[in-house]
């Protein structure tokens, strides 16, 4: 097969770094459309970093925090990965919001959303996913007082992005 393997191509274009995976010229279009992301921007790299971080929580053992924290549940990991995909789909990573994930001591996972006002309005919010996959969106004001607590349902994950955008423009 006339195969040319290009392991990684880096191209800088309008503030976006693109990483294309291994390319096979005879099937390049198909690969681009379905097998690997068409182009992975810096925001896309963040997505993959978070995906790796969440998947890595499967290795946390009992007492991982030295205060008897319990292992992160498979349900929480699965739910968090679904949330992450939805955030990516909703293009949250390009809206000036810093997204971070952390394990919770009760076997869940929490997303933390921050914006410091330099690139958008101030924002401090969390999404808690408990070990059974139940979710709550929490929003805090500048003094760290909780100003909103809303349930999020797995069939309506796009609600997270709506709440984040509302929070940014309060």
């Amino acid at each position: 097969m006339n195969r040319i393997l290009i392991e990684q191509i880096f191209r800088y274009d309008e503030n976006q770094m693109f990483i294309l995976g291994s390319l096979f010229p005879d099937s390049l279009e198909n690969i681009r459309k379905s097998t690997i992301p068409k182009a992975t921007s810096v925001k896309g790299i963040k997505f993959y970093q978070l995906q790796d971080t969440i998947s890595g929580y499967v290795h946390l053992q009992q007492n991982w925090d030295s205060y008897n924290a319990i292992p992160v549940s498979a349900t929480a990991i699965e739910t968090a990965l679904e949330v992450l995909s939805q955030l990516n789909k909703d293009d949250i990573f390009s809206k000036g919001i810093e997204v971070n994930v952390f394990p919770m001591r009760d076997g869940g996972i929490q997303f933390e959303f921050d914006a410091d006002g330099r690139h958008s309005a101030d924002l401090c919010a969390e999404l808690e996913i408990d070990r059974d996959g139940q979710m709550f969106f929490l929003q805090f004001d500048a003094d760290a007082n909780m100003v909103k607590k809303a349930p999020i349902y797995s069939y309506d994950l796009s609600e997270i992005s709506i709440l984040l955008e509302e929070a940014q423009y309060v």
Partner: protein
Amino acid sequence: MSDYIITVEDYLYRRVPKNNPNYWKEINGDKIPSSFAFKTKPNEDGLSVNIAALTTLKATVGNAKEVGIAEISAATPIGLGYQCKQDKQPDNDAHALIIGNTNPIGQRH
């Protein structure tokens, strides 16, 4: 010996993971601690800490691996209405509890 009374002048130590999992988040270049290490589990009476005046950083780390120490001013939980109470353990007189669900403290440490 009577119990030590924790006041707003005191500082409290809590172990936090160093790398696995990562405890810090970076917001526009500034490193900020996550709130997760300060949240109680549903079945806990409070958040375990050590009273700084009665211990050392080294003793607080003990045999735990890959941990650092977060120092919290007792004024924070006390100011939020939490009771901070010495809770001596057989091997640790400095142990104390911030009584109740401490999730709101996580945002203010």
